[in-house]
């Protein structure tokens, strides 16, 4: 009897050790809330992350093999479509929205500016099948991947199965995106008491907490809600935001509150990329907010800021730039991996 118990305990210890040796753990920064992504359903492993990274950078996901995820989400612009108000995809077709920055996605409950996508795993399906983006379908993508020399091997390494499925393709891409964690800006060092704000940044921080944090809530700089921040409707796009998902009039003109991390690099701003500079954004919040029935209550009364105060807020926003994230070799084009895979 005793030996049986010992055996069981030993087995358990061994099983756990085995797991962590082969699985990569997702490290949430200290003092952040728990991620909402359910890692038990898609446990991170280094091989799967590597596969996801290869897929993210591979135009094979598009109809004519010209557009990759990275075409519209490039690392140096915080995984946005750098400098493009509306992103363009295959055959230079123009979409209707600005590509959002990709980071800290493990904390996000829904995706897209209107929350149309309910799970990070399923996100990649949208651009793959959008006729203005990659204009492909997942069934054909899987067939194309299966026909390559390298991908069946990479899928085998990642999932123990060289027969490629849609689910495995999506889970791998999701794993790579989950690793895009940005938590090493100057702001974070200040919070960890490893650095101090300049006087101007500090003033900006206090103003930010007063006027902006209700929606752009620390430490992720979003409250993950859908809100109307008073932008006038662009009559050429007529984008009603969240309304198009719920068909509920109360959701008209509400968009997901974006993070402000790496905001220095993720221009242009807003769902349609209408503002090029942060000063344009502050001008909007102080002088451009349009009253309407769904306007957020925080913005019903105009925000009053002097021009110095605006500059202070911008100085603070620049402390959200995380160079280790923007230039991390772990997130860039996987040159080595592709060469290696081609070899064996």
């Amino acid at each position, binding site marked *: 009897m005793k030996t049986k118990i010992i055996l069981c305990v030993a087995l358990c210890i061994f099983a756990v050790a085995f797991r962590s040796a082969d699985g990569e753990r997702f490290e949430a920064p200290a003092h952040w809330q728990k991620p909402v992504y359910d890692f038990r359903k898609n446990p991170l492993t280094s091989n799967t992350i590597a596969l996801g990274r290869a897929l993210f950078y591979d135009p094979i996901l598009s109809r004519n093999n010209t557009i990759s995820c990275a075409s519209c989400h490039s690392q140096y612009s915080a995984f946005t479509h750098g400098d493009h108000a509306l992103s363009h995809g295959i055959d230079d077709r123009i979409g209707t929205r600005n590509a959002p920055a990709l980071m800290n996605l493990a904390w996000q409950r829904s995706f897209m500016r209107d929350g149309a996508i309910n799970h990070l795993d399923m996100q990649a399906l949208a651009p793959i099948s959008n006729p203005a983006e990659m204009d492909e379908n997942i069934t054909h993508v899987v067939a194309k991947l299966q026909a390559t020399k390298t991908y069946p091997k990479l899928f085998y390494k990642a999932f123990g199965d060289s027969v490629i499925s849609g*689910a495995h393709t999506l889970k791998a891409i999701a794993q790579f995106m989950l690793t895009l964690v940005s938590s090493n800006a100057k702001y974070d060092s200040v919070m960890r008491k490893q650095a101090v704000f300049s006087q101007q940044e500090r003033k900006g921080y206090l103003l930010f907490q007063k006027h902006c944090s209700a929606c752009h809530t620390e430490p992720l700089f979003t409250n993950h809600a859908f809100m109307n921040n008073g932008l006038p409707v662009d009559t050429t796009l007529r984008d009603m935001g969240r309304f198009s998902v719920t068909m509920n009039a109360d959701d008209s003109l509400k968009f997901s509150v974006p993070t402000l991390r790496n905001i220095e690099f993720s221009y242009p701003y807003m769902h349609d990329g209408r503002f090029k500079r942060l000063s344009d954004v502050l001008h909007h919040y102080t002088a451009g907010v349009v009253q309407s029935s769904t306007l957020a209550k925080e913005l019903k009364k105009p925000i009053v800021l002097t021009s110095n105060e605006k500059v202070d807020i911008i100085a603070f926003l620049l402390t959200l730039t995380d160079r280790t994230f923007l230039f991390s070799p772990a997130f860039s084009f996987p040159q080595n991996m592709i060469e290696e895979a081609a070899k064996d």
Partner: protein
Amino acid sequence: MTPIKTLLVIFSPLFFLLVACRGASARPRPLATSSSSGIIRLSIIPTFGSKNILIADSSFQTGDSHNVQIDVLKFYVSHIQFLKNGTVVLEEQKSFHLIDAAIKASFDIVIPNKHAISFDAVRFNLGIDSTTSVSGAMGGDLDPTKGMYWTWQSGYVNFKCEGKSNLCKARNNEFQFHLGGYRQPYYCLQTLTLPVHNPNEITLQFNAETFLSHSDVGTHHHVMSPNAEAVRLSAIVANSFSMVKSSTAK
């Protein structure tokens, strides 16, 4: 023995055991056992009136004036349960089945019933429940390559039916129904409970003729997203299922 040696002696066989177990659980377990009493056979046959639908050859005439051609007919049957006097006595694990009128093998579902539990009714969902719909990527019949996932807004299409009808006032007389929706107020999932007369041979039919006539395909021919119309038509789909008493439909 030194403690290290003891550990080694315990662990090395354990290691093999562990690896062996892993391998075993990765292999799909066979659904049916060799003894036919340990299983339940459930067949779901797509029909048009009294005729079976097989997509390769699916032109039908009804009355004197309604010509119908069905090009796509696919739907999810999930969460299958068996009841006795209204109480669930058996349920299938990981119960998701895509019935596709183009794939005859998809009509037959085999469910283990090791203890030969008796029952008098079967219950199942038509479509995919909302919890599953927000749980990320899944394989098997739920794999997005099956063409039953809404890529631009998430969620499964519960029921797909496409074809032509001469009554249909749309372009080329085409109709196209993609019914689904996992969020209120447009939650389209339907739950059906049907009495079972012969537990050895449960055959259900989905009658496309009933669906098309009750849904009024002449004026309602395109539903492609979750909305009130999708909810209304989903109920009609549910009412187009019936138990086949003798298994003549086969």
